[in-house]
């Protein structure tokens, strides 16, 4: 109890002087009245009790030293392999008190020191976690770490790790097999392009959806209705949109030849400018630059369903005879395709999103499935060098088929008969076709 307070109380009850020593307080001069002395004693006791009552946490901490959780152990820091020297991994064995039924551990905190400086908190993690990836490091610094167990406001820290300097590697050898496969497939594509240029006769199977393009454009011409071209809802950084525009180039040339109208509402500004350039060039090649107009392509909105509403409106009002849906589509695919179906238009659709393909197959007349979308431009061009690139893809398909059959046999034999040789083949294939860093 503070001496000033005691003296104040003593003054109130007529005590001359009080001396405070340690935690006990005694009067040197006897009180002039026994009732006043009793009152002082009562007040002192009540203050002492209230002071004890106000410090339960500290007292509890002293009384229950065993409630502190154990720290994490085996804290190890390793440099991440094949990176630009910007990542180290810290792993640890969680505290033995990190068990759901104990609820003693609230989580872990990871601290880092750079070049011998102070330790700074990096992150707080949930209980049960035993790894942290530090991606805020550079190769020109040396780091040490420790991990602490959190329990309420209390933390119990592990030992500090050894020093580590992140290193960078020039080549990612984990991707060596990917490189080999890429070289084989790309090399075969280039080889077939070269052979086609040299005049070799290459067979490319018929694609019904693309053979129907002529008929679809002709129908629109006969009916005197426009052709609607929808290039999906993604931007020019998506390969499906580019595939859609390459097909647009071929289709627009035929449209110019047939002197039919084309209408192309788009949902991205860059697609609008690229599509205008594509159509303009096609009209020039067809010898009809005068028939081209910027109004053929118009921007609507970036909003997915706002775009769908606008395109549906165009379909219902203008009743195009032919609709091309070629590009990246999401939930809007069926809304667009069904509206097109309801107005009786011939619909040619194509996307590389497997989830949307069933909708197009159900609602459209022709559907380009996956790779056919990317092959369409080359197919329509009829140029040997473009068709040669399609032939090169077959080598990739051959590799895929061989690997799938071999893998299937190897895994089945290894599992059913426990033959090491087949297990070795299965592991080897797994290593070749896995791109995950070890």
């Amino acid at each position, binding site marked *: 109890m503070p001496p000033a307070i005691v003296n104040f109380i003593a003054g109130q009850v007529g005590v001359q002087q009080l001396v405070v020593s340690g935690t006990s307080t005694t009067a040197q001069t006897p009180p002039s009245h026994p009732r006043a002395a009793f009152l002082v004693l009562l007040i002192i006791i009540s203050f002492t009790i209230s002071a004890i009552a106000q410090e339960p946490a500290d007292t509890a901490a002293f009384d229950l030293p065993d409630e502190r959780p154990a720290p994490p152990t085996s804290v190890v820091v390793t440099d991440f392999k094949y990176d630009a020297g910007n990542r180290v991994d810290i792993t640890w064995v969680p505290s033995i008190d990190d068990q759901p039924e104990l609820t003693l551990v609230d989580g872990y905190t990871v601290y880092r020191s750079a070049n011998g400086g102070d330790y700074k908190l990096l992150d707080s993690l949930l209980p049960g976690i035993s790894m942290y990836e530090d991606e805020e490091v550079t190769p020109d610094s040396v780091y040490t770490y420790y991990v602490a167990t959190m329990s309420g406001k209390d933390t119990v820290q592990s030992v500090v790790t050894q020093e580590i300097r992140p290193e960078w590697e020039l080549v990612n050898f984990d991707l060596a097999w990917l490189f080999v496969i890429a070289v084989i*497939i790309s090399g075969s594509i280039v080889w077939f392009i070269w052979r086609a240029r040299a005049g070799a006769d290459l067979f490319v199977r018929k694609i019904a959806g693309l053979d129907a393009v002529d008929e679809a454009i002709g129908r629109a011409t006969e009916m005197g209705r426009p052709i609607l071209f929808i290039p999906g809802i993604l931007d020019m950084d998506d390969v499906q949109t580019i595939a859609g525009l390459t097909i647009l180039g071929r289709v627009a040339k035929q449209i110019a030849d047939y002197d039919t109208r084309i209408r192309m509402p788009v949902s991205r500004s860059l697609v609008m400018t690229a599509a205008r350039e594509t159509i303009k060039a096609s009209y020039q090649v067809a010898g009809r630059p005068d028939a081209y107009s910027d109004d053929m392509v118009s921007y609507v909105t970036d909003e997915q369903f706002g775009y769908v509403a606008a395109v549906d409106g165009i379909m219902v009002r203008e009743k195009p005879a032919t609709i091309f849906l070629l590009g990246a589509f999401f939930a809007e695919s069926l809304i667009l395709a069904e509206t097109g179906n309801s107005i009786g238009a011939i619909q040619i659709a194509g996307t*590389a999103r497997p989830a949307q393909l*069933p909708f197009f197959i159900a609602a459209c007349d022709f559907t380009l499935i996956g790779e056919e979308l990317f092959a369409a431009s080359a197919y329509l061009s009829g140029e040997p060098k*473009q068709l040669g690139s399609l032939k090169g*893809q077959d080598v990739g398909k051959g590799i895929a088929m061989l690997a799938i059959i071999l893998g299937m046999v190897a895994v089945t034999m290894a599992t059913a008969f426990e033959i090491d040789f087949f297990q070795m083949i299965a592991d080897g294939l797994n290593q070749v076709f896995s791109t995950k860093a070890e």
Partner: protein
Amino acid sequence: MRRQVPLFITFFVGTLLIVSVFIPPMENLGEDFTLFFDIIAVFAFFLGGGNLLRVHLTKLYRKSPDWGFSVVTVVGFFLMLAAGLFKIGNPGDISASVTAEGSMFQTMFNNVVLPLQSTMYALLAFFIASASYRAFRAKNREATILLVAAFIILLGRTPFGMMLTAWIPDSWSVLQVPNLAIWIMNSPNLAGQRAILIGIGLGVVSMSLRIILGIERTYLGDDR
């Protein structure tokens, strides 16, 4: 020259990005280029917005058919633009977010744009029904298989499917409708999807090579 410069840029950037996959110090190059693209796309938005206004103002000026829709478009465009630009009704000062709760922009977005978007999305339920009706008609062998598979999956996803075949003993549990539905989804369906994905991957490689090597140029407006 007008064609050669874009072709050279395409070749250079395409090759660089392929190489960067195998060179760890260049691993973030793809993200950096994506950022460049985003910046360009933001500026291109002015082109899109300008085109939208031009198309609809022309329609209004000429009193073209359905010009009433253009009135809604133009009014909506300027209303949202003004609400966002001048932060009308924003609860905080001018530095507060344009999408702060209570602002006119956010109120219009929540009460006009979102319900309209949801309405369009809700149409999907009806279109799925009409498309399914056409797709599941047993016209030939393939369509019949599709119909049976679809029926099993539909039934397997309902409690009735479980009830219907609960009597089958555990040793034959694979024949219970929910398990059959899971098998169809995880085996034939997944295998088919993966086959399509392999084809897509190879198609992308082939098309990318055609573009990088300058064989495919239609996307640049060059059809020669």
